[in-house]
């Protein structure tokens, strides 16, 4: 989990210019103010780093940084089961 949270923090800082470290309970839109391009940048960054594919319908389950990290972990287990 920490590895994924770290990567989310890295994309937000390096690619999207967020000045503070995100907290797991931060809402991606309400707290971090990500717009559609910001969300996409985050998704593509995580997909590349963890070699997974997030799906369009995953959006429904993701509100916070923690939700997103949990989703990435789940997809990674499906993609690379050992």
């Amino acid at each position, binding site marked *: 989990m920490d590895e994924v949270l770290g990567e989310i923090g890295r994309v937000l800082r390096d690619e999207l210019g967020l000045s503070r470290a995100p907290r797991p309970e931060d809402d991606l839109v309400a707290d971090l103010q990500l*717009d*559609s391009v910001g*969300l*996409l940048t985050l*998704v593509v960054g995580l997909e*590349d780093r963890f070699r997974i594919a997030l799906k*369009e319908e*995953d*959006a429904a389950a993701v509100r916070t940084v923690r939700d997103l990290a949990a989703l990435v972990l789940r997809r990674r287990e499906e993609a690379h089961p050992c």
Partner: protein
Amino acid sequence: MLSGGPTVPPRHPTLQSALEQAAQSRLGLSFLDAQERETELPFTALYERARRAAGGLRDLGVESGDRVAIILPTGEEFMDAFFGAVLAGAVPVPLYPPVRLGRMEEFHRRTARMLQTCGARVVLSNGRISRLLGVAIASARPPLGLHAVPRGAPHEEQARPDDVLLIQFSSGTTVDPKPVALTHRNVLANVAAIETIVPTDDAQAGVSWLPLYHDMGLIGCLLLAVDRPGPLTLIPPEVFLARPGIWLRAISRKRATISVAPNFAYGLCVRRVRDADLAGVDLSSWRFALNGAEPVAPAVLRRFSERFAGHGFDPRALMPVYGLSEASLAVTFTPPGRGPRTLASGPRELASVGMPLPGIEVDIRGGRIFVRGPSVMREYYGNPAATAAALSDGWLDTGDLGFEHEGELFVSGRAKDVVILRGRNHAPQEFEDALDGAPGVRPGCAAAVGLSTAEGEELVLLVEADGDADAEQIRSLVTERTGVRPHAVHLLAPGTLPRTSSGKLRRGEALRQLQAGELRPPDRVTLVHVAKETARSLLARMRG
């Protein structure tokens, strides 16, 4: 009046015949993914696949003139669906696919509305996206339903030049989507006019990350490549947005001469592309760096030129252009090889968008830009009232404001209520409706306007509110509901926004007042005030 001189005849009577010709060449498309892996699709294969898709569509019951909605990402399936529909004699209508992690409610509503407006007979998508289309399909009920691109025996219907070739939306919103119907002749005339500026020998490679549901990507890149024919590399828009460096690397690797993008893309490259992304990148082949679909910010062009000069980018390649979906695509082009020309207009610096293309005339009437020529649309599909408002005697009222200076067109503003962000047109209601339920905000008491800044156009919300309203909360709400983050939210005292006598918001005037620092609450209406006004009008009547 500005005139581009005599019309050049289209190179092909119909897209069918352009595609047949292209299939004789050894050229084609290539698709890049996020890992920059390449998939080739030669025009020969594209044509054969499209013929089979056309057969499949006829088997499904698609008939000539039927609208075929296409909701697919940039890739081979999109080509099968689009050219398959054309060869089936049907009318393709490309629509936006959903965005990952994007907000689905807005996608459902927008898609349903667009399917209804164009009267789609069938919707083509893939398995992944289809799972998200249930709501829109249930509400729009296309008679032949939702399908993957079908395959059948090769088939090809002949078309006439004045048949409708495709429908594209002028602004992709739930509020007032306007389907622009373009004939083969409209589109191929525009492509032929562009080809008088952009050379057509097959050494001229193109690269595009633009969405294919928008005129600039579809007509200006894809159909131009088929018509010439010329090699074209396509990058999915979401890949570019997340990794802008991929665009510049593709131009370098392909030794591309032509690539077009809206203003924001040039700014995004300056902000987000790092030196590490540019190892070995050489942009010296890029001779036509077209810039259109949203207002051009000269400061962004200068920063782009400075940033990439060390990688061989020639500032004279920058070509601000002007066009709109109602005119197929292109209206004016900056002369190639010259670079941008700018002019101070009050506190703002405007870039010339150049001169009309051959066959196109531009007239300024009362500050408004009117356009006439063979690529102007025939109608808004199924909307005679909107058509009559936009077209008269072959002249298209663009709703844009501008002026002529030394034979070139400058676009200075907009009379129509549209906010253009990242090359996409939005109706202001899209953002105003997103305020529904925000504390302290009454319905109908907010105006969304596009403010031009040094970076380009930005969304600003002018909201009449009471003490309960919170600007940050409103910003989050709009971001959440529309996927667009407002640049600023101004809270105003009730009654501040200018309105017509019938109470309708005057957004253009509100924007003007904002820029001039004149947005102020109304004078308090007192009994004395009312008495004075009454006396004045009585006096006026007596004199009359």
